[in-house]
């Protein structure tokens, strides 16, 4: 079961980070301890102070959190990070409200959405690789610290996995060699789309109590959410 985060719910503070999976030895007299890395880490997120003001938002929050069943079901959510995306000429990373060819929109008054950043995988790479060559059709300058997502088909469902550039990329013509973390969760093939504009990843609630909604005066709430990267044994 996969749920998507509603665009009506926006947090005021966002904390996404790669949680390292290190083990430490006992501390010495000087306060130092030895560190051994067992794996490159996984994504955890704390999203706090969501603006929940309207009945629609309250209903959406309640329904969505109940549907996630305390870490049982997957949630596809982004890091709310469009300001740091490699935008072209300061254009928005994604453009919404695009009409059909006859100028009409969908029945709920929304249009198509399209990304203004176009990047694809330039060469095949196996799972657990941390280097990749990208073909850039249209994108601003790639910098380290940017998030990107590659969607892949796992057990019959499209699953997004998010990565972050950890070194300044090397450019050559229309391609870039990047280094990133965490290691590729799923092997990628040349031509796969790399989404810098609207990164998403599959997460679970961090614990059964995450996402409690405390409504003040029967109207207002500013709930928080704790998430960690989903892993269901398949990818």
């Amino acid at each position: 079961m996969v749920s998507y985060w509603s665009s009506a719910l926006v947090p005021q503070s966002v904390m996404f980070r790669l949680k390292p999976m290190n083990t430490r030895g006992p501390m010495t007299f000087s306060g130092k301890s030895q560190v051994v890395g067992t794996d490159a880490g996984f994504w955890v997120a704390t999203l706090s102070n969501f603006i929940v003001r309207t009945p629609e938002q309250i209903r959406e929050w309640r329904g969505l959190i109940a549907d996630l069943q305390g870490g049982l079901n997957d949630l596809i959510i982004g890091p709310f990070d469009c300001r740091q995306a490699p935008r072209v000429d300061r254009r928005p990373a994604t453009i919404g409200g695009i009409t059909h060819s006859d100028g009409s929109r969908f029945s709920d008054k929304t249009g198509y959405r399209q990304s203004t950043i176009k990047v694809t995988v330039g060469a095949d790479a196996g799972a657990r690789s941390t280097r990749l060559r990208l073909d850039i059709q249209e994108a601003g300058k790639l910098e380290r610290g940017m998030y990107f997502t590659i969607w892949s088909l796992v057990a019959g469902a499209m699953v997004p996995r998010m990565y972050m550039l950890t070194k300044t990329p090397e450019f050559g013509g229309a391609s870039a060699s990047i280094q990133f973390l965490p290691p590729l969760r799923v092997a990628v093939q040349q031509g796969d789309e790399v989404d810098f504009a609207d990164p998403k990843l599959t997460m679970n609630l961090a614990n059964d109590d995450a996402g409690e909604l405390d409504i003040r005066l029967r109207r207002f709430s500013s709930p928080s959410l704790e998430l960690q990267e989903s892993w269901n044994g398949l990818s």
Partner: protein
Amino acid sequence: MVFPETTKAHLAGRSVRKARLLEMSFLSGTMGVWNGFGILETKDGKVWNGLQGFGKISGIASTMGGKAPELIFTLSGVDEEFAAKAKGEAVEYFNRAAVVYDQFFDEEWGLLDQPYAVSFGMMRKLTSTREASNDGFVRTVSISAESPFSAKKRAKFAYLTPQDQRNRHPGDAFADDTPGIDTRRITFPDF
């Protein structure tokens, strides 16, 4: 220990990236797990399922002084396949091998050489527990494995001690040197 050159160079560095892998030879098939995130395919072609830090291995010690340390593998947050094995028949795991490997990684989390076997034991006892906590239930499966040096399967009189040997064959001094043999230096031939 004899490490390959690439691993030696890595060990001489400032930080070490190393994961512990566990291979259990169940009757219905071999199962590999490791404590990282997602599936790991090592250079010897084996596939390891990630436990994301839920697993624990304790009791890896050198067998000095004739001790036979017990290995205990603990797994919390158990998947379906594993739970089925725990509830299944003892023949599924009893006296079958469990091997612990180390896998070294390079700076970019690429694989360094093949997994390196560290310890192994024969699985003896598989217990599963379910504890209620504030956040719900926590399920834990533990497997204990004994090293081949433990003599628990043998009857007591069949140890290779000087007394036992003399009981079996009066006057036979064959086993006189066995107590403390692993810490004693014996020069042979002794002129």
